[in-house]
């Protein structure tokens, strides 16, 4: 069960390509259910990147694989962020996602390795042409593997409902012309304690970070600015989540700054009608989190700053959006021995109803 181990510890010292490579192989192995050899295959990435030609080939292949996986596995237009595009009165959009988060790089002897697999289902409904409500219900599974004097153990790993998020967005400013739109929308809502937050296993109570839910009602608010043309898409969003206390534990408040640049690759020349648009995109997520608090005392081994760069691909038709992205950490300045994120993959399908 060494599949999480060494090659990708201290990934902040390694290249983004290598992290992306790890994510791809990880996905493939999960699909093949060959967990035990992840270590070998990820080591293979390192050797492979020594050759420039191989590296170029692998980068291209990775992009294609992510896109193909988007179709074949299936799980919104931006992948990891919100946007301010109009939804329309009475219109509904559903989105199914698959997210995998892997965090390792434990500097302590416990060598913790966290794996989160989330399956969020998102519903969007336009109440008026400017007011839109969103609901996100995740089904997820968090597991932590760690070394103990008695050997390596695994905790968590129960698949079930997580904390749902309900929020509303109001388009306060909108300016449009032929094939262009500029929109600014504040939004606000809350994360609700729908996920289990008192889970226990054979070792006792599961730690708060491994519980599927926080047990608290956590309000959040923010704003998003979107500019879209037929060729380009730009998006900037900021948000703040106030995490509150439950079960004598409080997650640190979270501040986010997100950005998206998207370019239409195909069709190169627009013709009459409504063809499908194929985009290449780059998203960016800056996440700053305060220390968690246990019984009112700050945990110095939690919180910090992470900046992700997320290359991705997106195909949009009138009724569907297929998309995939890999969030790769560019900067991780975490407090104490908090676990570093290796990657977050997102595959998603949206349907216009």
């Amino acid at each position, binding site marked *: 069960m060494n599949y999480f181990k060494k090659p990708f510890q201290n990934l902040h010292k390694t290249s983004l390509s290598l992290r992306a490579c790890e994510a791809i192989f990880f996905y493939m192995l999960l699909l093949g259910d060959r967990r035990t050899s992840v270590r070998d295959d990820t080591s293979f990435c390192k050797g492979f990147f020594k050759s420039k030609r191989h590296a170029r080939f692998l980068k291209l292949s990775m992009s294609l694989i992510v896109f193909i996986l988007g179709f*074949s596995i*299936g799980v919104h237009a931006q992948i990891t962020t919100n946007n301010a595009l109009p939804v329309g*009165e009475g219109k509904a959009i559903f989105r199914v996602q698959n997210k995998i988060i892997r965090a390792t790089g434990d500097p302590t002897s416990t060598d913790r390795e966290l794996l989160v697999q989330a399956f969020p289902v998102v519903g969007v409904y336009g109440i008026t042409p400017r007011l839109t409500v969103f609901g996100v219900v995740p089904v997820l599974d968090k597991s932590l593997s760690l070394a103990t004097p008695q050997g390596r153990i695994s905790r968590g790993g129960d698949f079930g409902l997580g904390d749902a998020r309900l929020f509303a967005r109001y388009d306060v400013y909108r300016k449009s012309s*032929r094939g262009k739109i500029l929109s600014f929308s504040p939004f606000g809502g809350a994360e609700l304690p729908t996920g289990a937050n008192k889970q226990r296993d054979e070792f006792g109570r599961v730690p708060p970070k491994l519980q599927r839910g926080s047990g608290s009602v956590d309000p959040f608010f923010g704003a998003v600015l979107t500019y*879209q043309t*037929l060729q380009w898409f730009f998006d900037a969003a900021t948000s703040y989540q106030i995490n509150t206390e439950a079960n004598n534990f409080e997650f640190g408040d979270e501040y986010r700054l997100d950005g998206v640049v998207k370019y239409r690759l195909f069709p190169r020349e627009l013709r009459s*009608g*409504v063809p499908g648009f194929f985009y290449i995109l780059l998203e960016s997520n800056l996440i700053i989190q305060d220390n968690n608090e246990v019984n009112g005392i700050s945990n110095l081994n939690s919180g910090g700053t992470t900046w992700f760069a997320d290359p991705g691909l997106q195909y949009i038709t*009138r009724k569907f959006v297929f998309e995939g992205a890999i969030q790769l950490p560019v900067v991780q300045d975490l407090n104490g021995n908090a676990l570093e994120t290796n990657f977050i993959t997102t595959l998603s399908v949206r349907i216009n109803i």
Partner: protein
Amino acid sequence: MTRSFALTGLLAVLLLMFGLNQQAVAQQQEIEKPDIRVGVDGMACPFCAYGIEKKLKNIDSIEKLYVNIKEGTVDLKLKKGATLSEERIREAVKKAGFDTRSIKYLNEAAKPKLNPDRSDELF
């Protein structure tokens, strides 16, 4: 893990089947002689185009429509003998979250003459 993938896949397939079925029914064809050409501002992707299409399709007097995303226009073909007011068109586009740039009657018979309030009904 496998269960999560299976669930994701299953839901995605169901959504695809439902959507492709709808897509087939709703496939657009260019209209040879449209009655009205509506200019819509802000229509910048196929997903947005479908929102406008759906709102306009709710108007009884419209038989067919054709969205041209490059020009930002929607061509409307009305049912035989039907008329459609500018107000009704503007309202539908607004509800879809967009702005009407222009409304051009290519067939004068499509323009309501006597009672604009009842103009979108069949005679």
